[in-house]
């Protein structure tokens, strides 16, 4: 009935584009569009402008200095260390989340008992604040006077007879391998204190990746896999040649989501280590906060913020354009 009514009515309707309803629609979206234009794009432009000035004190007058702030920030050992830490954190965090997420999704999907319970237990940390996560894991990774008088996870290892696993964790000042490179004011390698932070972040986010992969796995029709099995493919072959390629779009989405969270990471590190020991766990998000709001170096802080923005945009903008194009094609 409805179908017929619509079809018969169509030719009668005027093909005018700008009618009253369309004007109302535009009016309804404009406050949000305006808010985004000001609070996102306008403020970014403003920050970009500040980063090109000499506004590095509470004084209100400043002059245009070009890219000086960027040059001076990049020249500091502290910011170079920040970038090293961010690369290490992002690499380990992404890799661990993807591998654990995929593994857990495959396991949960293999017709097990108590599936709902396992699934919920793996995902629940997503509901928590990074601050809660940081407070709890900081205590777990507080080493105490190990090996004799340990606390946290060190004590647990000792009580379980696994004392050789004890470590300095968030107080470890080591950088492995810690190469010195001509012209760089930081040592290249993995800052060991970053490992506990990665563990906490993986604890919080890997269940989310599992949920994504699980939704993907459930979307693959059984018939495809069954056909391959009938043709004599082993379970591993089915997984490698059918399941994994079909999960590729999920992996892409997960990399974008995890990547942008990782590049902006702030809360977890403030709570867990505050950037210590030394600056071994400090990242640009924290550095920007410290120099802007504690040292009043607004221009240098703005330069750091712009660097963060460019890095995130390099990751996200191609994805946004790509997903818009695929949507139009459909």
């Amino acid at each position: 009935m409805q179908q017929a009514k619509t079809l018969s009515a169509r030719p009668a309707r005027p093909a005018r584009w700008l009618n009253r309803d369309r004007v109302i629609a535009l009016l309804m979206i404009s406050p949000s569009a305006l808010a985004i234009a000001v609070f996102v794009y306008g403020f970014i432009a403003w920050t970009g402008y500040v980063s090109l000035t000499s506004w590095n004190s509470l004084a209100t007058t400043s002059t245009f200095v070009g890219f000086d702030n960027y040059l001076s920030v990049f020249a500091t050992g502290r910011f170079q260390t920040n970038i090293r830490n961010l690369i290490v954190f992002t690499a380990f965090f992404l890799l661990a989340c993807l591998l654990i997420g995929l593994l857990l999704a495959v396991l949960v999907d293999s017709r097990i008992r108590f599936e709902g319970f396992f699934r919920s237990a793996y995902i629940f940390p997503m509901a928590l604040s990074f601050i809660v996560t940081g407070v709890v894991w900081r205590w777990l990774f507080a080493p105490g006077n190990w090996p004799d008088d340990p606390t946290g996870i060190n004590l647990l290892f000792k009580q379980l007879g696994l004392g050789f696993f004890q470590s300095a964790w968030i107080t470890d000042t080591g950088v492995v391998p810690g190469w010195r490179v001509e012209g760089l004011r930081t040592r290249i390698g993995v800052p060991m204190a970053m490992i506990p932070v990665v563990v906490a972040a993986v604890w919080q986010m890997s269940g989310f990746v599992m949920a994504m992969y699980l939704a993907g796995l459930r979307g693959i029709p059984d018939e495809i896999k069954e056909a391959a099995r009938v043709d004599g493919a082993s379970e591993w072959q089915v997984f490698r040649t059918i399941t994994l390629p079909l999960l590729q779009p999920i992996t892409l989405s997960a990399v974008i989501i995890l990547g942008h969270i990782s590049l902006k990471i702030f809360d977890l590190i403030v709570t867990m280590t505050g950037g210590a020991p030394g600056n071994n766990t400090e990242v640009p998000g924290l550095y920007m906060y410290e120099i802007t709001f504690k040292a009043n170096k607004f221009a240098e802080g703005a330069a750091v913020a712009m660097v963060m923005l460019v890095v995130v945009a390099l990751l996200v903008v191609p994805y946004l354009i790509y997903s818009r194009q695929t949507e139009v094609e459909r």
Partner: protein
Amino acid sequence: MSSVPLPMSRQSRISWSRVIIYTVMILFLLFYLLPVYLILITSFKSFDQVSLSRMWDLPNGFSLASFDRAWNGGEGVIGMRGSFWNSIQLVVPATVISCLLGSLNGYVLSKWRFPGSETLFTLILFGMFIPYQSVLVPLVEVLREIRLYASIPGLILVHVVYGIPITTLIFRNYYATVPNELLEAGKIDGADFFGIYRHVMLPISAPGFVVVAIWQFTSIWNEFLFGLIITNDPQLRPVTVALQNLSGSQFTQWNVQMAGALLVALPTLLVYIFLGKYFLRGLLAGSLKG
């Protein structure tokens, strides 16, 4: 299944793989639940039981003293009670406004497309990914200018504005599944923009509203950076900032910190336990569109 007899060797191999599957799953379960165990046993210990060398032991007895200290404060500890009220005053209006805005935006961008509406949508979406460090200084300046700096309404405004991308995305994708024929029928019956919204879209919007409300409630409750910068006043702190201060203070014993962490986690955890399905849908909404 039972009609196909399996050879013995195949059967035993299958059960071995089951053993491995369950072992791995239980090991991971221990990893995810370890902090929960620690937080529970620690926060219910009485003060005289708190000993670093026995931190993994179960409490003997059941004490609420840690919660009392975390909530009400005392002996150098600033209680978190006030910050809970701040967070509620912040989260409830911000969530409601976010839902309404997101719903309207999603309705326009899915059913009233205009030239450039897809570009506008992509431009709005980008706002979801930016590092907020890149807007903080202008944000503080503008909030000062309009006299909303260091105030809860200022924080509400900020969360509503930066919540526009995700709420618009979820509602737009939700409304995209509504058949256009329904709208056409509404138009034939003489309904205008708001008529269709009220009589066609709103009645089927409940799941969308639940998903967006849970998403905004959870992310605003858990948010830290805006809370830290914009409520530059101890009286106005939201819970995350209060917890960070509590745990950063040298006067605060570990059992009080754990009790505080549990209190902050409780509201969103309850939402997850009772409305987990919708919580997950919100999580996946932003990620599975491509």
